[in-house]
C-alpha cells in the first residue's frame, strides 16, 4: 500500500474547518492525442489546451446553456445559502473548500456570470465573476475531477441544484478544449469497438463463462448455465464487465445465473453488449452515452430476446433506468409485461415473493451484513414499483437470504448515502489519494456499525463500489473481503434442485474410504 495520510474515523462526526488548497495537487492524467481523437475530441500540443480554447470554451458553454435546462437554471438560482457545504464526501474527507458543492459549481458559475449575465459583465467584482484564464480552466479540470456526480448535495439543496449536472457539463466542455480525462476517454472507445470497458473480446468472454460453469458445477454439483450470444433466449442480461472475473463481483454473477436457473427462464449474455457501465454519463456526453446504449438495443434485436435485465451496477442502472428509453428506445419489440429494463434485484425479489427459490439462510450465518446504498441507485432510480423501493428491495432480498443484518447510521443511508469515493469516472490509480479520503464518511459509518452491532461484511450492488472498497478498506484497517455482492449472498443461500445430492454421495464415499 502506498503511503497516504488516512483521515481519522470518529464515533461522532463533526464538520471540519476548511483548509484552502488541501487538494490542489490532485489531478487525473489528461488524455493524450490518441484517445482524444478516438473520442472525437481535439487535443493541444503536449496534452495542453487547443489553440482557440477560449472561444471554444465559451461557444460550448453557450451551446450547453441552450441544450440543458438544468444547467441554465442551476447557474442562476444558487443563493449561496451554504446548505450543501458540508454534504460532499470529498469535502468531508479532504477539507478543501473547493470540494464544497457550491464552490465546485462556482468554478463554472463565475465564468458564466462574467460572460453571460448583466451583473457579471458590468460588476464582476460585486458578484464574484472572473475572466476565463488558463488558471481558471486548470482549476476546473482538477476539481471537476474531484466530484463523483453522486448527487448527495442535490438532496439537500433548497432549489434542487445538482452539482453532477454542472460537473458533467464542465467535463464535456473541457474535453472539447483538449482537457479530456485519460481514464474515461481510454475506456469508452473500447466499448464502441469491442463491447466492454475491459476490451475483453468474444472468445475470451466465452472462455471465462465456460470456466465459470465448470467452477459452479464443481462447487454444487449442478450444471448452471452462463450462456453467451444464445439466440432466442428470453432474457438478455447486461452486467458490468467486472462481473466476469473481479472479486467479489463474479460471485454476484454466479448468483444471477443460479436465480435464472431456479426460475426456469432462458437467458443469455451478449458479447456485443457485454458492458452495463456507461462512462458517457461520467464525461457528460449525450452522444457517447447514446452510442453505448444503442449496443444494447442492437444486441437485443439480434438475439431476439423479449426482456432485458441489468446486473449489479450503480451508474449503469441510473443510465438504464432513466435514459435507456430515451437514448435507445422505443422498446416496443420487447415483452411489455415486464419493466424495461428490469433490475436483477427486481427479478430476484419477484422470485422470492413467489416462493420459487429454495433458500437456506444459515449458509450466510458466518457473516453479519450491512448494506451500502450506491449513490446512483439511491438518488437516481427505483428498484421496484414505489418511490423508495431502491432502498427497500435490496434490504428485503438480503434479509431473505441472511439472518444477521444491521443498517448503518440513518444519516448515511438511503438518499443520504455517501458515495464510495470512486464513482463518476474517478476509479483510477492516479486519483488514489482522493479515493481514500473520499471514502472516509462511508468507512466511518461502517466502523461504527461494526463496533456497535458486530457487522462483519458490507453488501453492495455496484461494480465501482465493490472495486473501490476492495482497494480502500485496507487503508482503514479493514480487509478487502469485507465487501460482498448482494447476489453473492443469494448465491450462498440458494439451494438448487439436485444440489447437495452428489455432495452427500461424495461424503459417503469418503467415509467408506
Amino acid at each position, binding site marked *: 500500500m502506498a503511503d497516504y495520510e488516512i483521515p481519522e474515523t470518529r464515533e461522532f462526526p463533526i*464538520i471540519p*474547518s*476548511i483548509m484552502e488548497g488541501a487538494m490542489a495537487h490532485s489531478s487525473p492524467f489528461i488524455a493524450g492525442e490518441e484517445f482524444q481523437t478516438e473520442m472525437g475530441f481535439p487535443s493541444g500540443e503536449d496534452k495542453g489546451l487547443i489553440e482557440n480554447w477560449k472561444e471554444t470554451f465559451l461557444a460550448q458553454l453557450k451551446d450547453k446553456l*441552450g*441544450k*440543458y*435546462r*438544468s444547467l*441554465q*437554471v*442551476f447557474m*442562476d*438560482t*444558487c*443563493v*449561496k*445559502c*451554504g*446548505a*450543501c*457545504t458540508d454534504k460532499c464526501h470529498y469535502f468531508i474527507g479532504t477539507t478543501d*473548500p473547493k470540494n*464544497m458543492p*457550491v464552490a465546485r459549481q462556482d468554478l463554472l458559475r463565475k465564468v458564466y456570470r462574467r460572460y453571460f*449575465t448583466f*451583473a457579471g459583465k458590468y*460588476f464582476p*467584482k*460585486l*458578484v*464574484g465573476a472572473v475572466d476565463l484564464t488558463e488558471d481558471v480552466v486548470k482549476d476546473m479540470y482538477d476539481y471537476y475531477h474531484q466530484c463523483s456526480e453522486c448527487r448527495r448535495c442535490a*438532496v*439537500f*439543496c*433548497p*432549489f*434542487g*441544484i*445538482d452539482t453532477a*449536472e454542472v460537473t458533467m457539463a464542465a467535463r464535456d466542455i473541457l474535453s472539447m478544449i483538449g482537457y479530456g480525462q485519460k481514464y474515461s476517454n481510454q475506456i469508452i472507445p473500447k466499448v464502441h469497438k469491442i463491447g466492454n470497458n475491459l476490451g475483453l473480446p468474444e472468445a475470451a468472454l466465452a472462455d471465462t463463462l465456460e470456466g465459470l460453469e465448470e467452477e459452479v458445477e464443481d462447487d454444487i454439483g449442478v450444471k448452471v448455465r452462463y450462456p453467451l450470444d444464445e439466440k432466442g433466449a428470453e432474457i438478455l442480461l447486461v452486467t458490468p464487465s467486472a462481473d466476469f472475473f473481479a472479486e467479489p463481483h463474479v460471485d454476484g454473477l454466479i448468483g444471477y445465473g443460479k436465480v435464472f436457473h431456479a426460475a426456469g427462464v432462458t437467458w443469455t449474455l451478449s458479447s456485443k453488449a457485454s458492458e452495463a457501465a456507461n462512462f458517457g454519463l461520467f464525461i457528460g456526453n*449525450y*452522444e457517447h452515452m*447514446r452510442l453505448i446504449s444503442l449496443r444494447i*438495443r442492437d444486441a437485443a434485436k439480434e438475439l431476439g430476446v423479449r426482456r432485458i435485465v441489468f446486473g449489479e451496477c450503480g451508474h449503469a442502472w441510473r443510465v438504464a*433506468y*432513466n*435514459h435507456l*428509453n*430515451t*437514448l*435507445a*428506445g*422505443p422498446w416496443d419489440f420487447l415483452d411489455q409485461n415486464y419493466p424495461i429494463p428490469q433490475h436483477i434485484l427486481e427479478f430476484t425479489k419477484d422470485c422470492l415473493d413467489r416462493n420459487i427459490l429454495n433458500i437456506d439462510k444459515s449458509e450466510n450465518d458466518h457473516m453479519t451484513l450491512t448494506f451500502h446504498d450506491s449513490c446512483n441507485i*439511491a*438518488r*437516481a432510480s*427505483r428498484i421496484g414499483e414505489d*418511490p*423508495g423501493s*431502491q432502498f427497500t428491495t435490496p434490504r428485503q432480498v438480503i434479509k431473505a437470504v441472511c439472518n444477521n443484518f444491521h443498517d448503518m447510521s440513518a444519516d448515511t443511508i438511503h438518499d443520504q448515502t455517501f458515495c464510495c469515493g470512486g464513482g463518476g469516472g474517478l476509479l483510477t490509480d492516479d486519483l488514489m489519494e482522493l479515493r481514500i479520503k473520499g471514502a472516509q464518511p462511508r468507512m466511518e459509518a461502517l466502523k461504527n456499525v461494526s463496533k456497535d452491532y458486530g457487522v462483519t461484511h458490507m453488501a453492495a450492488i455496484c461494480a465501482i463500489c465493490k472495486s473501490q472498497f476492495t482497494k480502500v478498506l485496507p487503508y482503514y484497517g479493514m480487509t478487502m473481503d469485507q465487501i460482498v455482492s448482494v447476489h453473492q449472498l443469494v448465491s450462498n443461500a440458494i439451494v438448487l434442485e439436485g444440489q447437495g445430492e452428489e455432495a452427500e454421495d461424495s461424503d459417503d464415499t469418503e467415509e467408506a474410504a
Partner: protein
Amino acid sequence: MSALSILYVILFYVAMITLVAGVTNKILQYKRVPAPLKIAVTPAPLTKKGVAYRFFTEVVFFNSLFRATKWTWIFGWIFHFSMLLAFLRHLRYVISPDSFIWPLVNNMVVQSFGHYAGFAMLFGLAGLFGRRILVDRVRYISSPSDYLMLILIMGIAGTGLMIAYVAHTDVVQLKAFIMGLFFFDWQNLPGDTVLLVHLTMVLLLMIIFPISKLLHAPGLFMAPTRYQIDNPREKRHLSPWGAEIEAKDGRNS
C-alpha cells in the same frame, strides 16, 4: 405635482416594467431550453399530484433545507415567512376599499401579524448575515453581492418598522399615490425622508430581481431534478435535439 413625485412615478414604472419583463423573459428562457434527460432526484413522485406535493413541502416548509441545516432553515424560514406577512399587510396600499378582497386584507389578523412581521424579518436576516460571517464555509462562498442583498432587505425592513413606529407618514396620501400609478392619475407622494429611503430600496430590489440570485424564486420551480415525474421506464422522454440526433442515423427505429 412636485418634481420629487414625478421622479418617483417614473422610477416606479421603470422598476415595475424591469421586474415583470425581466422575470418573464427569464422564465421564458428556462422554458425554451429543453431538459434532454430524466434527472429527477429520487425518491421522486410518480404523478403530477405528487410533484405538486413535493413543491408544496419545499415552498411552504423548506423541506430540503430543513434536512440540510437547522440554523439556516430557522433563519431563512422566519425571514421568508415574515416577509410574506409584511407583503400581505402592504396589499392594503394597492387594493381599493370597494373591492371584494378588501376585507381579506384589511382585517385584524393580516394587519397585526404584518405589523410585527418586520421584527421577525430583521431577526431572520440578522441570523443569515451572522452565518455568512461566522461560518467559515459560508464565508468562503460569499461575494460582496451576497452581503449587500441581506443589507438591502434589512434596510427595507428597518425603514418599514421606522415608518410604523417612529416616523409616521401620511398613509392616505401614500395610497393615493400608489393607486394613481395604476390608473395613470398621478398624485403627490409624501416627502418624508424615511419613506423615500424605504421606497427607493424596494425599487432597487425590484430592478435587480431579474439579474440577481433573487431568480431563485421562479428557478425553484424550473429544476428538472424536482419537477420531473419519476416514470422514465413507462414513458419515453425525448427532447427536440435528441430527436434530431436520432433522425440522423435512424438507429432507434
